[in-house]
């Protein structure tokens, strides 16, 4: 039987209450959202929280709403809710592509977007989704609030720039016209972590030229989006040659390693092939006016 080491448990009654508990709990106080990363880690004693602050009652952190040119998503929004949202699917189809292959439907009933981003797992799909769409995250502390690009949230594998006592409360995705996106991953079996995955967003001008684009890769040692891939796309008409050049640039920027999921060479091949596919699909979707 896997059992976490003992900890204290507190249920936050508001965001301010959670921040107070975090501040008073010190170094080993953790927020508990969906628990599908933290509890497995605690069972394996990779995490040894002294205090778990359960934020599942904070329904004011669970929402998806249009806020001008942004889609604002509360940190406690579950994977299943993102997948059920027509607005998410319409504005950010890559998020639905990704959500369909994140774990399984039962896990998606519990796991949250805020938890996923703060776990900062290099194989986590939503981190790439957020990088690709140019997400911002809202971070609150006691008496403080700051908004930063999601690329500044991630400091490295399993590491964020959150200070002790801070919590992520909202994820914001910018909405752009004539823009669409796609995500695709290769996994060893259904619901597994990515061997490699790619996400892309493409913005077309009125004449069909690519005026903006981004490509991100999952599980191959790349943080943020890949500038060289963007440079190969912007100003070009969408074509197989252009997608191939961008995908090769993305694969060249990847830093995969050999592991049980595959060789570095195989993952680099996937980075190239999956980048082509998501660019193709994102451009088609953008052209069809979604």
């Amino acid at each position, binding site marked *: 039987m896997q059992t976490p*080491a003992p900890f204290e448990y507190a249920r936050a009654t508001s965001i301010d209450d959670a921040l107070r508990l975090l501040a008073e709990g010190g170094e080993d106080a953790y927020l508990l959202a969906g*628990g599908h990363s933290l509890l497995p880690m*605690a*069972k394996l004693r990779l995490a040894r929280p002294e205090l778990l602050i359960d934020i*599942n009652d904070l329904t004011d952190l669970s929402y998806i709403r249009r806020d001008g040119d942004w889609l604002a998503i509360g940190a406690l929004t579950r994977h299943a809710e993102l997948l059920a949202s027509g607005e998410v699917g319409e504005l950010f189809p890559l998020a639905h592509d990704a959500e369909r292959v994140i*774990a*399984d439907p039962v896990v998606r*009933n*519990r796991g949250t977007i805020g938890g996923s981003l703060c776990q900062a797992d290099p194989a986590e799909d939503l981190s790439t989704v957020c990088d690709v769409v140019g997400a911002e995250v809202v971070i609150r502390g006691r008496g403080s609030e700051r908004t930063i690009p999601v690329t500044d949230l991630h400091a490295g594998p399993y590491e964020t720039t959150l200070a002790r006592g801070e919590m992520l409360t909202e994820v914001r995705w910018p909405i752009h016209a004539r823009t669409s996106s796609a995500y695709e991953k290769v996994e060893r079996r259904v*619901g597994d972590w990515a061997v490699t995955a790619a996400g892309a967003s493409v913005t077309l001008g009125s004449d069909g030229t690519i005026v903006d684009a981004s490509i991100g890769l999952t599980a191959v040692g790349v943080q943020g989006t890949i500038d060289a891939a963007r440079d190969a796309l912007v100003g070009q008409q969408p074509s197989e040659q252009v997608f191939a050049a961008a995908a090769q640039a993305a694969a060249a920027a990847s830093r995969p390693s050999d592991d049980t999921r595959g060789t570095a060479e195989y993952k680099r091949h996937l980075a190239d092939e999956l980048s082509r596919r998501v660019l193709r699909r994102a451009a088609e979707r953008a052209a069809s006016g979604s």
Partner: protein
Amino acid sequence: MQVTMTVNGVEVTREVEPRRLLVHFIREDLRLTGTHWGCDTSNCGVCVVLVDGTPVKSCTMLAASAGGHEVRTVEGLEQGGKLDPIQDAFMEKHGLQCGFCTPGMMLTSRALLDANPDPSEDEIREAISGQICRCTGYSTIVRSVRWAAEQEQKARDGESAAGSTADEGTHETADHETADHETAGATA
């Protein structure tokens, strides 16, 4: 710490360690061993229970987090001596072999039919994709869920047909069909 929740319509209160996982709380503290305990890593899905009607892997939820919520286990499917249509279906269509995955499969299927009374085969396969049947009896599980959907549809048709002509003679089917609502109502 003390935790209070509703399990199969009955309010229960127990003293637990905060680290107590919901699956062990159900099996060992409540002695409801119909909920199975498998991989312990949220992969296999044999520990699935419904929390407020939603399927959850109970090896990856604290009992403390279930406090104040409604939990439904396989023991709560049967209502008033009548099996849930999902249970009838698993018998009728041979939806089980060894039975280890069956409680979780039936609860996920119940939640699916409550949300989507006429699921396609693909939708059923998607819904149970977080659960493993090591007998690999998926085809018969899918057939079982379809059968239950059809039985429930027939019961509803019978109910509305009877309801439009007379108010009598529908108690059998109505009882069967309102099992869920009774559970939801039995929280006091």
